[in-house]
């Protein structure tokens, strides 16, 4: 148990610390790297809680795809972050005040936090790993109890796909494209032309 506690607090501390660094770092590349770090630690927290599927998903999707995409964007677009931050100080007092108020209020809530005694009975409890794998359990819920949401999420992804295509895809003229059909249909006759080369006359004259 003690080990678990120590590991939890280490992971948690690193998540919070690196999350802070995401917004505090001056270099955007560093920000993204800190983001990745916090993702990793969050994944660690999931593992600790016995949700290995979520942990792996987090690493694969967020670290492997999203964060790397961020990195690309940050590196490829030359965004002057210093200039972007210039107005920051102007809003700091009001922002800080709002943040402070919200923090105090959140603390009040935390002070009143009582885990509802019925939580175990209301939500679907996770079966022990020995009986059923995490993935299996999730799948069972997703495809039965939450089928409606699962399908609806599918529609969301469809919209996202349509949106991405509608907003970015355009037919460019004057761009040479690979035509697989043309490549496959090419015969030797189209591709190769035999020429008699007169020896000693050089190449320029005969072509």
């Amino acid at each position, binding site marked *: 148990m003690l080990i678990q506690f120590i590991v939890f607090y280490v992971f948690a501390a690193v998540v919070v610390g690196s999350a802070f660094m995401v917004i505090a770092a001056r270099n955007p590349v560093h920000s993204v790297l800190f983001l990745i770090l916090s993702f990793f630690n969050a994944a660690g927290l999931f593992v600790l809680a016995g949700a290995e599927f979520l942990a792996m998903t987090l690493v694969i999707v967020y670290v492997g795809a999203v964060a790397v995409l961020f990195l690309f964007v940050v590196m490829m677009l030359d965004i002057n972050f210093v200039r972007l931050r210039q107005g920051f100080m102007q*809003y700091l007092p*009001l*922002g800080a005040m*709002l943040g402070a*108020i*919200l923090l105090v*209020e959140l603390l*009040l809530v935390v002070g009143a936090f009582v885990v509802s005694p019925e939580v175990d009975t209301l939500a679907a409890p996770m079966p022990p790993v020995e009986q059923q794998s995490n993935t299996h359990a999730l799948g069972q819920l997703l495809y039965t109890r939450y089928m409606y949401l699962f399908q609806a999420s599918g529609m969301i992804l469809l919209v996202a796909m349509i949106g991405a295509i509608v907003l970015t895809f355009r037919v460019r003229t004057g761009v040479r494209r690979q035509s697989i059909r043309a490549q496959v249909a090419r015969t030797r006759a189209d591709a190769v032309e035999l020429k008699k080369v007169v020896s000693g006359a050089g190449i320029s004259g005969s072509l």
Partner: protein
Amino acid sequence: MLYGLIVFLPLIGAILAGLFGRWLGDRGSHIVTCGLVTASALLSVPAFWFVAIQGNTQIVELFPWIISGELEASWALRVDQLTAVMLVVVTSVSAVVHWYSIGYMHDDPHQPRFFAYLSLFTFAMLALVTADNFIQMFFGWEGVGLCSYLLIGFWYHKPSANAAAIKAFIVNRVGDFGFALGICAVFFVFQSVEFDAVFEAVPRFVDTEIEFLGTHLDTLTVITILLFIGAMGKSAQIGLHTWLPDAMEGPTPVSALIHAATMVTAGVFMVARLSPMFEYAEFTLMLVTIVGALTAIMAATIGLVQNDIKRVIAYSTCSQLGYMFFACGVSAYQAGVFHLFTHAFFKALLFLGAGSVIHAFSGEQDMRRMGGVWRMIPMTYALMWIGSLALGGIPLFAGFYSKDIVLEAAWGAHSGVGQLAFVLGIMAAGLTAFYSWRLLFMTFHGHSRASHEVLHHVHESPPVMIVPLLFLAAGAVFAGMLFAPLFVGDNHGFWGDSIFVLASHTALEEAHHAPLWVKLLPLVVAVTGIGTAYWMYIARPELPARLAEQHRELYRFFLNKWYWDELYDILFVRSARAIGTFFWKKGDEATIDGYGPNGVASRVLDIARRAARLQTGYVYHYAFVMLIGVVAFVTWYLFIVGM
């Protein structure tokens, strides 16, 4: 059905001409309105026969109108002898005026509108005279006022016409306010506005008092004085008469119909209709007599020196209305209504004749620029003579019978105010004769003072104008002769229950037994007046000017119409203007507008500008505002609700 047709046919005509005049065209509007009003006039003859001669009075309930608590007023036609007489007068004069207008207005570009107004007026007037309750009467009362306003201001592009229309409307408001208060008082006291119910209850309220602001006032006196104020306004009695001469700005047929024959007599009609109430209010009757007598003499003196042909006739109308009122004041309502009846014919004749003269002089109204044309327009000349003879009270003509019985009744009242009215009435009769013939002589005789251009164009009016005048002339000649025995004769049966006179009020009875000098005196002064007029305007034309020079002050006093307008200007107009300006500048603009509409408006714009400035276009500003909103919500929950 018959009575309904009489009342509503003109309304149909007004609606058709008013709303569809553009499609009907001038000719169509003429046919529709004149046809319907003439039909109404023709129908009123059998109505008169049934009701007045055969005595079949009745009340035709049409439909309930206003029912609110104890206030119940239905739309009903009360057809009794008084109404029948008025029906004949209103519809026949209206029909004549409609026909006449076809000729008189033939150059006007807005004829459908004119005829629609005329017909609408006729309807309103009929609604007034057939009213069975105070509310309906008030409806008609206001309706004729409205039409009068519209018709006086018919040539709305003339500033003077607009001013006159507004003046007529506003002065009438004063009277109408009295009338409305009177109706309220009637309802307050009698719990009803139905004539029958009220009349029946009146005797029970004799010598009762109502308390108003701590003073105790005699119930019936208060009510009748309030109602009489309404009558004074509508009938242009002294004090509220100033609008009538100005109303001559309207087209002449309008003056004839509204400001001579019908609307202005509504006050007299009202007093006669409400005779069961006035009879029990001695003080009010005295007041009516005095007001009538003063009006008669005042208007007559002003009429002496006016130069506008229509204004002379207008003051004459005012004066004759005074006669009618003092007749009512001495309880000789029959005489008053009889004078109303004859006056309607000869005064309409005079007005329309004057219109014909004006027409002949290409729109000239100033008598100082007329004269010497009697050979050129003989028909008009003859008709004006007939009208003047009737007005002057020359025997055999209508005015003779009615004016004499009025004066005799005043004498016959044997009361102080009666004597006053008699004396003033006799004087006014002389003056009337004088100014009537002054008008005739100045207009038709002597050397012409019109320009060559105008004289060249002097012509007789077309038949469509002359024929109606002939009808009126017949009325002016025969109406007195034929109807005097019926209306004011020894046989009292004619009026039935429509006019109520207390047994102790015997003026009319006494009038029949007046001594010979009383009967002859009006004729004598009338002839004297005519003679004087001949002497001054034919024999010695330079005399009037010298006379005016000698009695400069008096002349100016009369010429300026007793300075009524100036007095009102100082008393009401200027002070009202001063108060108004004060409230406008200081009260309204500075205070109410400043803090109210204008202040609010500029605040609104300020806020609008600020609200728009919130919209910077930066996403992070928007997000920031959202976060502020979230924090505000949370705070609300935690500290306002949660605590």
